[in-house]
């Protein structure tokens, strides 16, 4: 029942972000015009990814404290879920960039940082699949995942803000969540949309974890 409550909440918040996101009045800015509404969809992908990757980070730490393989599963599946949102974020960003800056990819610290982050997590999966021994794989990938999350913060949150000449918005202070900078009507849609996608990310992560549990049950039965 409690589980279902979260599913409904996530679904309703996303549904709200679709309707409200399309219907509210937005400030008419040059060049982007109505495509400013992508804020409710494109940016939420990254929020969901960062939260799910944080889950992976926390569970990697928990694994290294306890050496309980359950936490390794939790961390790995969180990283896999995060990659879904990363890819969706990149793809939507490319489409938005094509019709705003004229090209699918521009040389911008924010874009390259996001791409590097995705590659770091893809390398995490490659690393995992290259080690057969369970405990060893869990330990090495947990240490890697901790570094990976720190690099995510650096490449997505810090470096693009420090570098001059980034044309991707979201620089200077905390424009996504701060009180200044974002239109107040848009904030009423933006925050629920973030919450909805973060909840959806967590739900997908839990489905993935249950899939792995099914797999280990099969291994158990095969022995």
């Amino acid at each position: 029942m409690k589980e279902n409550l979260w599913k409904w909440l996530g679904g309703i918040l996303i549904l709200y972000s679709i309707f409200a996101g399309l219907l509210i009045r937005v400030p008419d800015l040059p060049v982007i015009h109505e495509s400013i509404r992508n804020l409710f969809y494109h940016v939420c992908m990254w929020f969901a990814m960062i939260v799910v990757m944080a889950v992976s980070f926390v569970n990697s730490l928990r694994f290294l404290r306890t050496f309980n393989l359950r936490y390794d599963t939790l961390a790995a599946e969180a990283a896999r879920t995060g990659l879904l949102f990363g890819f969706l974020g990149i793809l939507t960003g490319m489409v938005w960039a094509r019709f705003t800056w004229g090209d699918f990819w521009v040389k911008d610290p924010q874009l390259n940082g996001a791409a590097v982050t995705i590659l770091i997590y893809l390398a995490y999966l490659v690393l995992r699949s290259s080690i057969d021994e369970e405990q060893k794989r869990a330990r090495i990938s947990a240490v890697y995942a901790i570094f990976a999350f720190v690099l995510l913060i650096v490449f997505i949150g810090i470096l693009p803000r420090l570098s001059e000449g980034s044309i991707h918005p979201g620089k200077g202070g905390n424009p996504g969540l701060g009180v200044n900078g974002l239109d107040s009507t848009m904030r009423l849609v933006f925050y629920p949309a973030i919450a909805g996608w973060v909840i959806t990310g967590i739900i997908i992560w839990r489905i993935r974890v249950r899939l792995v549990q099914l797999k280990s049950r099969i291994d158990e039965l095969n022995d």
Partner: protein
Amino acid sequence: MESSDKMFVVILVMAIIFTGVFVYLLLLDRQTHRLSKEVEKLEAERKARVQTKS
């Protein structure tokens, strides 16, 4: 195709996200289905083995 208000960009972005999530969930569902079938099969086999032993 490019209308000046760029509303189509929003539609494109939404389409990417929702087809992406939908296909992803579809694949997960297929995997779950396959695995739970296998668990059922193995459990039935194990049961049969226990019964023939006793």
